[in-house]
Protein backbone atom coordinates (compact mmCIF):
# COMPACT_ATOMS: atom_id res chain seq x y z
CA UNK A 1 0.00 0.00 0.00
CA UNK A 2 1.52 3.33 1.10
CA UNK A 3 4.93 1.74 1.49
CA UNK A 4 4.91 0.80 -2.20
CA UNK A 5 4.25 4.32 -3.36
CA UNK A 6 7.88 5.59 -3.33
CA UNK A 7 8.97 2.66 -5.47
CA UNK A 8 6.06 3.28 -7.84
CA UNK A 9 7.10 6.92 -8.11
CA UNK A 10 10.69 5.83 -8.84
CA UNK A 11 9.47 3.44 -11.55
CA UNK A 12 7.24 6.11 -13.01
CA UNK A 13 10.12 8.58 -13.23
CA UNK A 14 12.22 5.92 -14.94
CA UNK A 15 9.49 4.95 -17.40
CA UNK A 16 8.08 8.37 -18.21
CA UNK A 17 11.12 10.62 -17.92
CA UNK A 18 13.84 8.08 -18.71
CA UNK A 19 15.58 9.10 -15.50
CA UNK A 20 17.07 6.54 -13.15
CA UNK A 21 16.77 7.80 -9.60
CA UNK A 22 19.56 6.30 -7.48
CA UNK A 23 17.73 6.63 -4.16
CA UNK A 24 14.49 7.97 -2.76
CA UNK A 25 16.28 10.86 -1.12
CA UNK A 26 18.30 11.88 -4.20
CA UNK A 27 17.86 15.61 -4.85
CA UNK A 28 16.41 15.60 -8.35
CA UNK A 29 16.87 19.33 -8.87
CA UNK A 30 20.33 19.72 -7.40
CA UNK A 31 21.55 16.74 -9.40
CA UNK A 32 20.10 18.23 -12.59
CA UNK A 33 17.76 15.28 -13.17
CA UNK A 34 14.64 17.45 -13.04
CA UNK A 35 14.26 20.69 -14.99
CA UNK A 36 11.21 22.80 -15.74
CA UNK A 37 10.18 20.59 -18.62
CA UNK A 38 10.72 17.36 -16.71
CA UNK A 39 8.74 18.81 -13.82
CA UNK A 40 5.64 19.31 -15.89
CA UNK A 41 6.00 15.81 -17.32
CA UNK A 42 6.34 14.50 -13.79
CA UNK A 43 3.22 16.30 -12.60
CA UNK A 44 1.24 14.95 -15.53
CA UNK A 45 2.65 11.46 -14.96
CA UNK A 46 1.75 11.46 -11.25
CA UNK A 47 -1.79 12.62 -11.99
CA UNK A 48 -2.21 9.93 -14.62
CA UNK A 49 -0.58 7.10 -12.69
CA UNK A 50 -2.37 7.82 -9.44
CA UNK A 51 -5.61 9.04 -11.04
CA UNK A 52 -5.58 12.25 -9.06
CA UNK A 53 -5.27 15.99 -9.47
CA UNK A 54 -2.39 17.51 -7.57
CA UNK A 55 -3.31 20.60 -5.53
CA UNK A 56 -0.82 22.91 -7.20
CA UNK A 57 -2.48 26.16 -6.15
CA UNK A 58 0.01 26.22 -3.30
CA UNK A 59 2.74 24.69 -5.36
CA UNK A 60 6.21 24.57 -3.94
CA UNK A 61 8.94 22.99 -5.99
CA UNK A 62 10.50 21.77 -2.73
CA UNK A 63 7.72 19.16 -2.73
CA UNK A 64 9.23 17.65 -5.88
CA UNK A 65 12.86 17.72 -4.88
CA UNK A 66 13.09 13.96 -4.28
CA UNK A 67 10.98 10.83 -4.46
CA UNK A 68 10.59 11.01 -0.70
CA UNK A 69 9.32 14.58 -0.83
CA UNK A 70 6.88 13.75 -3.62
CA UNK A 71 5.53 10.91 -1.52
CA UNK A 72 5.22 13.20 1.53
CA UNK A 73 3.45 15.83 -0.57
CA UNK A 74 0.97 13.30 -1.89
CA UNK A 75 0.43 12.00 1.60
CA UNK A 76 0.03 15.39 3.29
CA UNK A 77 -2.29 16.70 0.61
CA UNK A 78 -4.65 13.79 1.17
CA UNK A 79 -4.32 12.29 -2.30
CA UNK A 80 -3.33 8.86 -1.08
CA UNK A 81 -6.13 8.74 1.46
CA UNK A 82 -8.66 9.80 -1.15
CA UNK A 83 -7.51 6.91 -3.32
CA UNK A 84 -7.81 4.52 -0.41
CA UNK A 85 -4.13 3.60 -0.57
Amino acid sequence: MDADIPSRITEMIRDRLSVDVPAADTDLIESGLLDSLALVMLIAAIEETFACELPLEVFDIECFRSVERIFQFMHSSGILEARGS
Partner: protein
Amino acid sequence: MSPIRALEREDLPAVCRLYERVFRSGTADPPPQLLGYFERTFIDCPWADPSIPSLVYEDSDGKIVGFIGSHARRLRIDGRPIRMGCSGPLVAAPEARNRGVGALLLRRYLAGPQDITITDAATDTVRRMEVGLGGQVLVHASIGWTKVFRPGAALASWLSHRHRWPMLARLVGLVAPVLDAAAPMLDSAAPGRLRRRAGLVQAQPDAQAVPLTVDALLEQMGNAARTLRLHPDYDAEYLHWLFSELEAVDFRGVPVRHLVYDRSGRVAGWYVYYLTPGGIAQVLQIAAPTGSADLVLDHLFWHAANGGAAAVQGRIEPALLGPLRSHWCLLSRSQLALVYTEDQILLGLLGSPKSLLTRLEGEWWMGHRLLWRGGGHSMSTSPRQLAGEAWSVVEAACRGHLRRGRRGMV
Protein backbone atom coordinates in the same frame (compact mmCIF):
# COMPACT_ATOMS: atom_id res chain seq x y z
CA MET B 1 -1.47 31.31 -1.40
CA SER B 2 -0.88 30.47 -5.03
CA PRO B 3 2.07 32.19 -6.69
CA ILE B 4 0.02 32.33 -9.90
CA ARG B 5 -2.67 34.96 -10.37
CA ALA B 6 -4.41 36.94 -13.11
CA LEU B 7 -2.49 39.78 -14.75
CA GLU B 8 -3.57 43.22 -13.58
CA ARG B 9 -2.97 46.52 -15.31
CA GLU B 10 -0.56 47.56 -12.55
CA ASP B 11 1.63 44.54 -13.34
CA LEU B 12 2.40 45.67 -16.87
CA PRO B 13 5.57 47.68 -16.18
CA ALA B 14 7.11 44.67 -14.38
CA VAL B 15 5.91 42.27 -17.07
CA CYS B 16 7.38 44.47 -19.83
CA ARG B 17 10.71 44.67 -18.01
CA LEU B 18 10.78 40.88 -17.69
CA TYR B 19 9.84 40.42 -21.33
CA GLU B 20 12.44 42.94 -22.51
CA ARG B 21 15.11 41.17 -20.51
CA VAL B 22 14.28 37.64 -21.66
CA PHE B 23 13.03 38.04 -25.23
CA ARG B 24 14.17 41.40 -26.55
CA SER B 25 17.25 43.47 -25.77
CA GLY B 26 18.44 41.60 -22.69
CA THR B 27 18.11 44.78 -20.62
CA ALA B 28 15.33 45.59 -18.18
CA ASP B 29 14.63 48.84 -19.99
CA PRO B 30 11.80 48.35 -22.49
CA PRO B 31 10.87 51.09 -24.95
CA PRO B 32 8.02 53.18 -23.55
CA GLN B 33 5.66 52.12 -26.35
CA LEU B 34 5.88 48.47 -25.33
CA LEU B 35 3.81 49.02 -22.22
CA GLY B 36 1.00 50.53 -24.26
CA TYR B 37 1.18 47.63 -26.69
CA PHE B 38 0.91 45.07 -23.90
CA GLU B 39 -2.01 47.03 -22.47
CA ARG B 40 -3.88 47.12 -25.78
CA THR B 41 -3.32 43.47 -26.62
CA PHE B 42 -3.69 41.81 -23.21
CA ILE B 43 -6.02 44.08 -21.23
CA ASP B 44 -8.01 46.33 -23.56
CA CYS B 45 -8.75 43.97 -26.44
CA PRO B 46 -12.55 43.99 -26.89
CA TRP B 47 -12.60 40.21 -26.48
CA ALA B 48 -10.40 40.17 -23.36
CA ASP B 49 -12.13 37.72 -21.05
CA PRO B 50 -11.59 38.04 -17.28
CA SER B 51 -12.18 34.32 -16.90
CA ILE B 52 -9.34 33.51 -19.37
CA PRO B 53 -6.80 36.06 -18.18
CA SER B 54 -3.11 36.42 -18.83
CA LEU B 55 -1.28 35.06 -15.79
CA VAL B 56 1.71 36.14 -13.75
CA TYR B 57 3.86 34.15 -11.36
CA GLU B 58 5.09 35.92 -8.24
CA ASP B 59 8.01 34.72 -6.16
CA SER B 60 7.91 34.79 -2.37
CA ASP B 61 8.91 38.48 -2.37
CA GLY B 62 6.02 39.41 -4.65
CA LYS B 63 8.32 39.95 -7.64
CA ILE B 64 6.91 38.88 -11.00
CA VAL B 65 9.15 36.14 -12.38
CA GLY B 66 6.84 34.62 -14.98
CA PHE B 67 4.12 35.62 -17.41
CA ILE B 68 1.87 33.90 -19.92
CA GLY B 69 -0.17 36.06 -22.28
CA SER B 70 -3.78 35.24 -23.07
CA HIS B 71 -5.66 36.25 -26.19
CA ALA B 72 -9.31 35.26 -25.79
CA ARG B 73 -11.08 34.58 -29.05
CA ARG B 74 -14.68 33.73 -29.92
CA LEU B 75 -15.59 30.94 -32.31
CA ARG B 76 -18.70 29.09 -33.38
CA ILE B 77 -18.90 25.37 -33.83
CA ASP B 78 -22.03 24.17 -35.61
CA GLY B 79 -23.62 27.49 -34.70
CA ARG B 80 -22.81 27.18 -31.00
CA PRO B 81 -20.53 29.86 -29.47
CA ILE B 82 -17.33 28.62 -27.86
CA ARG B 83 -14.32 30.31 -26.35
CA MET B 84 -10.73 29.89 -27.43
CA GLY B 85 -7.64 30.91 -25.53
CA CYS B 86 -4.54 31.68 -27.53
CA SER B 87 -1.56 31.50 -25.24
CA GLY B 88 1.63 33.41 -25.68
CA PRO B 89 4.14 34.67 -25.05
CA LEU B 90 5.34 32.49 -22.18
CA VAL B 91 8.25 33.99 -20.32
CA ALA B 92 10.10 33.05 -17.15
CA ALA B 93 12.97 34.86 -15.47
CA PRO B 94 16.19 32.85 -15.98
CA GLU B 95 16.77 32.71 -12.22
CA ALA B 96 13.33 31.14 -11.71
CA ARG B 97 13.36 28.56 -14.48
CA ASN B 98 14.50 25.70 -12.29
CA ARG B 99 11.41 26.28 -10.22
CA GLY B 100 9.19 25.21 -13.06
CA VAL B 101 7.63 28.65 -13.46
CA GLY B 102 6.95 28.35 -17.18
CA ALA B 103 5.55 24.87 -16.90
CA LEU B 104 3.26 25.79 -14.04
CA LEU B 105 1.95 28.89 -15.80
CA LEU B 106 1.19 26.85 -18.90
CA ARG B 107 -0.48 24.16 -16.86
CA ARG B 108 -2.70 26.67 -15.09
CA TYR B 109 -3.59 28.37 -18.36
CA LEU B 110 -4.54 25.10 -20.06
CA ALA B 111 -6.81 24.29 -17.12
CA GLY B 112 -8.86 27.44 -17.76
CA PRO B 113 -12.54 27.51 -18.75
CA GLN B 114 -11.89 27.93 -22.48
CA ASP B 115 -13.10 25.17 -24.82
CA ILE B 116 -9.85 25.10 -26.73
CA THR B 117 -6.36 26.53 -26.33
CA ILE B 118 -4.02 27.17 -29.22
CA THR B 119 -0.65 28.70 -29.75
CA ASP B 120 0.74 29.31 -33.21
CA ALA B 121 4.30 30.40 -32.51
CA ALA B 122 5.53 27.79 -30.06
CA THR B 123 9.16 27.07 -29.32
CA ASP B 124 10.29 23.47 -29.09
CA THR B 125 10.44 23.76 -25.31
CA VAL B 126 6.82 24.91 -25.15
CA ARG B 127 5.87 22.08 -27.49
CA ARG B 128 7.42 19.52 -25.17
CA MET B 129 5.74 21.05 -22.15
CA GLU B 130 2.33 21.26 -23.76
CA VAL B 131 2.48 17.78 -25.21
CA GLY B 132 3.50 16.57 -21.76
CA LEU B 133 0.36 18.20 -20.41
CA GLY B 134 -1.92 16.53 -22.94
CA GLY B 135 -1.76 18.95 -25.84
CA GLN B 136 -0.71 18.10 -29.36
CA VAL B 137 0.92 19.55 -32.43
CA LEU B 138 -1.57 20.80 -35.00
CA VAL B 139 0.29 19.19 -37.85
CA HIS B 140 -1.12 20.95 -40.90
CA ALA B 141 -0.80 24.37 -39.25
CA SER B 142 2.86 23.68 -38.50
CA ILE B 143 3.66 23.29 -42.19
CA GLY B 144 4.30 26.38 -44.23
CA TRP B 145 3.90 27.06 -47.92
CA THR B 146 5.77 29.50 -50.12
CA LYS B 147 4.98 30.87 -53.54
CA VAL B 148 8.07 32.39 -55.10
CA PHE B 149 7.98 35.21 -57.68
CA ARG B 150 11.57 36.49 -57.48
CA PRO B 151 13.86 33.62 -56.51
CA GLY B 152 16.95 35.78 -55.97
CA ALA B 153 15.23 38.34 -53.75
CA ALA B 154 13.37 35.58 -51.89
CA LEU B 155 16.60 33.72 -51.16
CA ALA B 156 18.34 36.95 -50.09
CA SER B 157 15.44 37.80 -47.78
CA TRP B 158 15.42 34.28 -46.32
CA LEU B 159 19.16 34.36 -45.69
CA SER B 160 19.09 37.83 -44.15
CA HIS B 161 16.46 36.70 -41.64
CA ARG B 162 18.58 33.73 -40.61
CA HIS B 163 21.53 35.91 -39.49
CA ARG B 164 23.83 32.93 -39.97
CA TRP B 165 25.54 33.62 -43.24
CA PRO B 166 25.71 37.41 -43.58
CA MET B 167 28.36 37.28 -46.32
CA LEU B 168 26.31 34.83 -48.34
CA ALA B 169 23.18 36.93 -47.81
CA ARG B 170 25.00 40.01 -49.13
CA LEU B 171 26.36 38.08 -52.10
CA VAL B 172 22.95 36.70 -53.02
CA GLY B 173 21.51 40.17 -52.55
CA LEU B 174 23.95 41.47 -55.15
CA VAL B 175 23.18 38.86 -57.79
CA ALA B 176 19.45 38.66 -57.01
CA PRO B 177 18.39 41.37 -59.49
CA VAL B 178 20.17 39.53 -62.32
CA LEU B 179 18.62 36.21 -61.35
CA ASP B 180 15.19 37.74 -61.01
CA ALA B 181 15.48 39.54 -64.34
CA ALA B 182 16.06 36.14 -65.97
CA ALA B 183 13.06 34.56 -64.24
CA PRO B 184 10.48 35.63 -66.84
CA MET B 185 12.63 34.02 -69.54
CA LEU B 186 12.66 30.75 -67.63
CA ASP B 187 8.94 31.09 -67.19
CA SER B 188 8.29 31.63 -70.85
CA ALA B 189 10.01 28.31 -71.62
CA ALA B 190 7.32 26.43 -69.71
CA PRO B 191 4.18 25.18 -71.48
CA GLY B 192 1.32 27.69 -71.30
CA ARG B 193 -1.00 25.60 -69.15
CA LEU B 194 1.72 25.00 -66.56
CA ARG B 195 2.85 28.60 -66.69
CA ARG B 196 -0.56 29.92 -65.71
CA ARG B 197 -0.35 28.91 -62.08
CA ALA B 198 3.03 27.27 -61.63
CA GLY B 199 5.05 30.12 -63.05
CA LEU B 200 7.05 32.85 -61.39
CA VAL B 201 5.27 35.58 -63.34
CA GLN B 202 1.71 35.97 -62.17
CA ALA B 203 -0.87 36.36 -64.88
CA GLN B 204 -3.67 38.88 -64.57
CA PRO B 205 -6.28 36.97 -62.53
CA ASP B 206 -9.74 36.25 -63.77
CA ALA B 207 -11.00 38.03 -60.67
CA GLN B 208 -11.34 41.46 -59.17
CA ALA B 209 -11.14 42.72 -55.62
CA VAL B 210 -12.29 45.51 -53.35
CA PRO B 211 -11.00 46.37 -49.89
CA LEU B 212 -12.35 44.04 -47.23
CA THR B 213 -14.06 46.32 -44.74
CA VAL B 214 -15.34 45.42 -41.30
CA ASP B 215 -18.92 45.34 -42.59
CA ALA B 216 -17.94 43.22 -45.59
CA LEU B 217 -16.12 40.68 -43.45
CA LEU B 218 -19.05 40.45 -41.04
CA GLU B 219 -21.40 39.87 -43.94
CA GLN B 220 -19.15 37.30 -45.58
CA MET B 221 -18.53 35.42 -42.34
CA GLY B 222 -22.29 35.30 -41.82
CA ASN B 223 -22.68 33.72 -45.26
CA ALA B 224 -19.73 31.40 -44.69
CA ALA B 225 -21.35 30.08 -41.53
CA ARG B 226 -23.75 28.19 -43.78
CA THR B 227 -20.93 26.01 -45.09
CA LEU B 228 -18.31 26.17 -42.33
CA ARG B 229 -18.74 24.16 -39.14
CA LEU B 230 -16.04 26.01 -37.22
CA HIS B 231 -15.25 29.67 -37.73
CA PRO B 232 -14.49 32.92 -35.88
CA ASP B 233 -17.49 34.72 -34.40
CA TYR B 234 -16.40 38.22 -35.35
CA ASP B 235 -18.18 41.40 -34.30
CA ALA B 236 -17.62 44.98 -35.46
CA GLU B 237 -15.87 46.21 -32.32
CA TYR B 238 -13.38 43.35 -32.38
CA LEU B 239 -12.66 43.71 -36.09
CA HIS B 240 -12.00 47.44 -35.75
CA TRP B 241 -9.53 46.62 -33.00
CA LEU B 242 -7.98 43.79 -35.02
CA PHE B 243 -7.52 45.83 -38.19
CA SER B 244 -6.03 48.67 -36.19
CA GLU B 245 -3.56 46.33 -34.48
CA LEU B 246 -2.58 44.80 -37.83
CA GLU B 247 -1.59 48.30 -38.93
CA ALA B 248 0.49 48.80 -35.80
CA VAL B 249 2.82 45.89 -36.60
CA ASP B 250 4.51 47.85 -39.35
CA PHE B 251 7.76 45.87 -39.49
CA ARG B 252 5.85 43.04 -41.17
CA GLY B 253 4.78 45.25 -44.05
CA VAL B 254 1.48 46.75 -45.12
CA PRO B 255 -1.64 44.84 -44.16
CA VAL B 256 -3.77 44.21 -47.24
CA ARG B 257 -7.38 43.03 -46.98
CA HIS B 258 -9.27 42.12 -50.13
CA LEU B 259 -12.66 40.73 -50.95
CA VAL B 260 -12.36 38.84 -54.24
CA TYR B 261 -15.08 38.58 -56.89
CA ASP B 262 -15.21 36.19 -59.81
CA ARG B 263 -15.90 37.29 -63.35
CA SER B 264 -19.66 37.11 -62.86
CA GLY B 265 -19.53 39.36 -59.78
CA ARG B 266 -20.00 36.61 -57.20
CA VAL B 267 -17.86 36.65 -54.08
CA ALA B 268 -15.08 34.06 -54.42
CA GLY B 269 -13.55 34.68 -51.00
CA TRP B 270 -11.13 37.00 -49.26
CA TYR B 271 -7.58 37.30 -48.05
CA VAL B 272 -5.61 39.25 -45.47
CA TYR B 273 -1.84 39.48 -45.72
CA TYR B 274 1.19 41.63 -45.06
CA LEU B 275 2.66 42.95 -48.29
CA THR B 276 6.44 43.27 -47.96
CA PRO B 277 7.97 44.76 -51.11
CA GLY B 278 11.37 43.20 -51.76
CA GLY B 279 10.76 40.65 -49.02
CA ILE B 280 8.54 37.74 -48.17
CA ALA B 281 4.88 38.63 -47.76
CA GLN B 282 2.98 36.81 -45.03
CA VAL B 283 -0.58 35.55 -45.28
CA LEU B 284 -2.83 35.75 -42.24
CA GLN B 285 -6.13 34.54 -43.64
CA ILE B 286 -7.42 33.09 -46.88
CA ALA B 287 -11.06 32.10 -47.05
CA ALA B 288 -13.05 30.70 -49.90
CA PRO B 289 -16.13 29.12 -48.34
CA THR B 290 -17.79 28.55 -51.71
CA GLY B 291 -14.86 26.55 -53.04
CA SER B 292 -13.18 29.19 -55.19
CA ALA B 293 -9.83 29.14 -53.43
CA ASP B 294 -7.94 28.89 -56.74
CA LEU B 295 -9.35 32.23 -57.78
CA VAL B 296 -8.59 33.85 -54.44
CA LEU B 297 -5.00 32.58 -54.61
CA ASP B 298 -4.71 33.81 -58.21
CA HIS B 299 -5.61 37.31 -57.08
CA LEU B 300 -3.45 37.21 -53.95
CA PHE B 301 -0.35 36.06 -55.85
CA TRP B 302 -0.89 38.55 -58.65
CA HIS B 303 -1.36 41.36 -56.14
CA ALA B 304 1.71 40.41 -54.08
CA ALA B 305 3.93 39.93 -57.13
CA ASN B 306 2.89 43.28 -58.59
CA GLY B 307 3.33 44.89 -55.18
CA GLY B 308 6.99 43.92 -55.26
CA ALA B 309 6.99 40.91 -52.93
CA ALA B 310 9.70 38.36 -53.63
CA ALA B 311 7.47 35.56 -52.35
CA VAL B 312 4.35 34.90 -50.32
CA GLN B 313 4.28 32.59 -47.33
CA GLY B 314 1.45 31.14 -45.32
CA ARG B 315 0.60 28.07 -43.35
CA ILE B 316 -1.34 25.08 -44.54
CA GLU B 317 -5.07 25.24 -43.88
CA PRO B 318 -7.09 22.12 -44.70
CA ALA B 319 -9.24 23.87 -47.28
CA LEU B 320 -6.18 25.19 -49.11
CA LEU B 321 -4.19 22.04 -49.67
CA GLY B 322 -5.52 21.29 -53.14
CA PRO B 323 -5.35 24.85 -54.49
CA LEU B 324 -1.82 25.29 -53.10
CA ARG B 325 -0.76 22.17 -54.98
CA SER B 326 -2.20 23.45 -58.22
CA HIS B 327 -0.28 26.71 -57.71
CA TRP B 328 2.98 24.80 -57.21
CA CYS B 329 3.72 26.17 -53.78
CA LEU B 330 6.72 24.85 -51.90
CA LEU B 331 6.13 23.25 -48.51
CA SER B 332 8.45 23.69 -45.57
CA ARG B 333 8.44 23.65 -41.80
CA SER B 334 6.78 26.60 -40.15
CA GLN B 335 6.17 27.94 -36.67
CA LEU B 336 4.80 25.22 -34.41
CA ALA B 337 1.06 25.34 -33.84
CA LEU B 338 -0.24 23.55 -30.77
CA VAL B 339 -3.73 22.72 -29.62
CA TYR B 340 -5.19 21.59 -26.33
CA THR B 341 -8.81 20.57 -25.99
CA GLU B 342 -10.79 17.75 -24.50
CA ASP B 343 -13.51 18.17 -27.12
CA GLN B 344 -12.82 15.46 -29.68
CA ILE B 345 -15.32 16.84 -32.19
CA LEU B 346 -13.62 20.21 -32.07
CA LEU B 347 -10.22 18.58 -32.38
CA GLY B 348 -11.37 16.61 -35.42
CA LEU B 349 -12.82 19.69 -37.08
CA LEU B 350 -9.50 21.52 -36.91
CA GLY B 351 -8.20 19.24 -39.63
CA SER B 352 -11.29 19.59 -41.79
CA PRO B 353 -11.90 21.92 -44.75
CA LYS B 354 -15.10 22.83 -42.93
CA SER B 355 -13.13 24.88 -40.44
CA LEU B 356 -11.65 28.35 -40.71
CA LEU B 357 -9.09 28.95 -37.99
CA THR B 358 -6.17 30.90 -39.36
CA ARG B 359 -3.15 32.90 -38.29
CA LEU B 360 -5.49 35.89 -37.91
CA GLU B 361 -6.97 34.22 -34.83
CA GLY B 362 -3.54 33.50 -33.36
CA GLU B 363 -0.70 35.58 -32.00
CA TRP B 364 2.03 34.81 -34.53
CA TRP B 365 1.65 38.14 -36.32
CA MET B 366 1.76 40.28 -33.22
CA GLY B 367 4.66 42.58 -32.47
CA HIS B 368 5.55 42.03 -28.82
CA ARG B 369 8.98 40.76 -29.72
CA LEU B 370 10.00 42.90 -32.64
CA LEU B 371 8.28 46.28 -32.44
CA TRP B 372 10.51 49.23 -31.49
CA ARG B 373 13.70 47.22 -31.51
CA GLY B 374 16.56 49.61 -32.07
CA GLY B 375 14.10 52.48 -32.11
CA GLY B 376 12.69 51.79 -35.55
CA HIS B 377 12.01 49.20 -38.17
CA SER B 378 13.92 45.98 -38.35
CA MET B 379 14.54 46.79 -42.01
CA SER B 380 16.63 49.69 -43.26
CA THR B 381 13.75 50.94 -45.38
CA SER B 382 10.27 50.79 -44.00
CA PRO B 383 8.07 48.22 -45.79
CA ARG B 384 5.44 50.94 -45.79
CA GLN B 385 7.72 53.26 -47.80
CA LEU B 386 8.56 50.46 -50.18
CA ALA B 387 4.91 49.54 -50.45
CA GLY B 388 4.05 53.11 -51.32
CA GLU B 389 6.43 52.97 -54.25
CA ALA B 390 5.35 49.49 -55.27
CA TRP B 391 1.72 50.41 -55.02
CA SER B 392 2.02 53.00 -57.74
CA VAL B 393 3.24 50.16 -59.98
CA VAL B 394 0.23 48.04 -59.06
CA GLU B 395 -2.10 50.91 -59.70
CA ALA B 396 -0.57 51.51 -63.09
CA ALA B 397 -0.86 47.83 -63.91
CA CYS B 398 -4.47 47.83 -62.79
CA ARG B 399 -5.59 50.90 -64.64
CA GLY B 400 -6.64 49.05 -67.73
CA HIS B 401 -8.27 46.37 -65.65
CA LEU B 402 -10.14 48.97 -63.63
CA ARG B 403 -11.65 50.49 -66.72
CA ARG B 404 -13.12 47.10 -67.57
CA GLY B 405 -14.13 46.18 -64.05
CA ARG B 406 -16.28 47.64 -61.35
CA ARG B 407 -15.36 50.92 -59.76
CA GLY B 408 -12.83 50.70 -56.91
CA MET B 409 -11.68 47.23 -57.76
CA VAL B 410 -8.09 46.14 -58.16
